[in-house]
């Protein structure tokens, strides 16, 4: 399942004094099985872009193709596209509305017209995917859960549609460090174990460095970089210009290199940094 965006333009409130171009000439392709991070400063067009992936926004110009089919052709049912491309909005817990967790997660499958048995199976499965026990929460009100649990229930509500691509807009914002670690781990598991294609929108460089394989950098509605994570994080000047940075450990390595230490700078995680720093210390004879 692939998503392809070709020369996409999107303008908010066209023809009014509030007209604003949000996306300009954006082209990119997301292949089956990828884990792509989309990064960019506030207002760079990230959220606008991902709303094109499942047809919530109609491009002002350009095309969006899901599985090589233009989704704005007349005979395409957008409902099908939205089932295939699951979109989790920022603060998804704000969309919860049902009386019980079960009913809320069942909302998506029910809209797809599935029978009760299949709905029950999907609710159970998606709750387990996000690390919540089915029996423990099914009859509780979503409004009495903790913030982290609410967010999981909301994500489960999208997973229950069994999409093949999962697009998440800032899924860990506002969570405490532990909730954030757990959720990121679950995303990684969804990608590895259940083979979801994942698109992660974030402005935390550390999060995308940890999970994504490929990075797309948006700046003022344009794609300014697109490539493997390590390669993109080498472009420190470009990232600084766009108001972003690099992961903290990468920053550290760059600083060491600036001070004349012979270290690799394409380090992304704390674990990699540990290995690299030990190697450095050993070569300097400070540890054995």
């Amino acid at each position, binding site marked *: 399942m692939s998503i392809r965006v070709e020369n996409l333009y999107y303008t908010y409130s066209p*023809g009014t004094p509030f007209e604003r171009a949000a996306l300009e000439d954006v082209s990119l392709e997301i292949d089956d099985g990828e884990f792509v991070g989309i990064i960019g400063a506030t207002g760079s067009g990230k959220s606008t872009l991902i709303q094109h992936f499942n047809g919530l926004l109609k491009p002002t110009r350009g095309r969006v193709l899901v599985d090589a089919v233009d989704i704005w052709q007349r005979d395409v049912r957008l409902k099908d596209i939205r089932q295939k491309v699951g979109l989790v909005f920022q603060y998804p817990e704000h*969309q919860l509305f049902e009386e019980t967790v079960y009913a809320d997660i069942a909302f*998506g499958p029910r809209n*797809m017209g599935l029978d009760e048995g299949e709905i029950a199976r999907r609710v159970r499965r998606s709750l387990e995917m996000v690390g919540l026990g089915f029996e423990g929460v099914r009859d509780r009100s979503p409004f009495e859960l903790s913030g982290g649990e609410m967010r999981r229930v909301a994500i489960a509500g999208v997973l229950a*549609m069994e999409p093949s691509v999962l697009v998440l807009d800032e899924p860990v914002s506002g969570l405490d460090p532990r909730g954030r670690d757990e959720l990121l781990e679950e995303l990684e598991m969804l990608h590895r174990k259940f083979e979801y294609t994942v698109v992660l929108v974030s402005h935390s460089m550390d999060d995308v460095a940890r999970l994504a394989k490929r990075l797309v950098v948006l700046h003022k509605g344009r794609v300014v970089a697109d490539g493997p994570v390590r390669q993109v994080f080498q472009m420190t000047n470009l990232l600084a210009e766009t108001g972003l940075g690099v992961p903290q450990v990468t920053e550290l390595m760059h600083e060491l290199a600036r001070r004349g230490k012979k270290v690799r700078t394409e380090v992304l995680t704390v674990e990699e940094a540990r290995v690299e720093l030990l190697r450095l210390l050993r070569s300097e004879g400070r540890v054995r």
Partner: protein
Amino acid sequence: MFGNITIGQYIPGDSPVHRLDPRVKLFITLVTITVLFLVHTMAGYGLVLLFILGAMLLARLPVRFVLRGVRPLLFIVVLTFGLHLFMNEGRVLFRMGPLVATYEGAYRGFAMSMRLVLLVLATSILTLSTSPIELTDGIESTLAPARLVGVPAHELAMMMTIALRFIPTLLEETDKIMKAQMARGADFQTGGVLQKAKSLVPLLVPLFVSAFRRADELAMAMEARCYRGGQGRTRMKQLRVGARDILAAVGSTAALVIVAVYL
């Protein structure tokens, strides 16, 4: 999705109309509306239209944008015109089955439609050229004398400020929740009346939850800044009526009254 709503929107600017005292603008708008209901000749409507267009140009408002605000009204205008056209007695213009259109009806229908459109135009110039804060300050100050008879002028104005302030926020929120539910396969467009009403539940429940949350946070933030009503509260921007304001008020009122009396 809600990008076309112009009600309550404000276009920042620095035109002579923007700089007028909000109370003066309120006053002129009220006079315009009154005159609109007094005139009854084509020439009268024409002159009021001219006056409104003049104000629009003077405020440097994009004419097409202002006219777009009239669009939601189109249905009512057409209905009004149709009703007058067929419901009046007089010389026959044409017949459509059992319906008889008359010259008198066409004339009255046109006048009523004109009245509606001009009403909306006049008030939208006021809101488009006056920031919500200025507007409510103006209303508060106008209502101030009524405090003596127990009208809570400040509280009313504060409520209006807050309501106006939250219109765009709530619209944005509605748009976001709608999209989130559409991403889960919700359908807000098709189905019968009952089906449509039911499909609003997934939208309204989150919207109310978030509105209450916002209200709570706002109350907290206001209290944290020691807000305790209008008693003894001073302002950073004092409203002051200058020569320009008096000129505008007297000039427009005189012009409009002449139109009302003679046409």
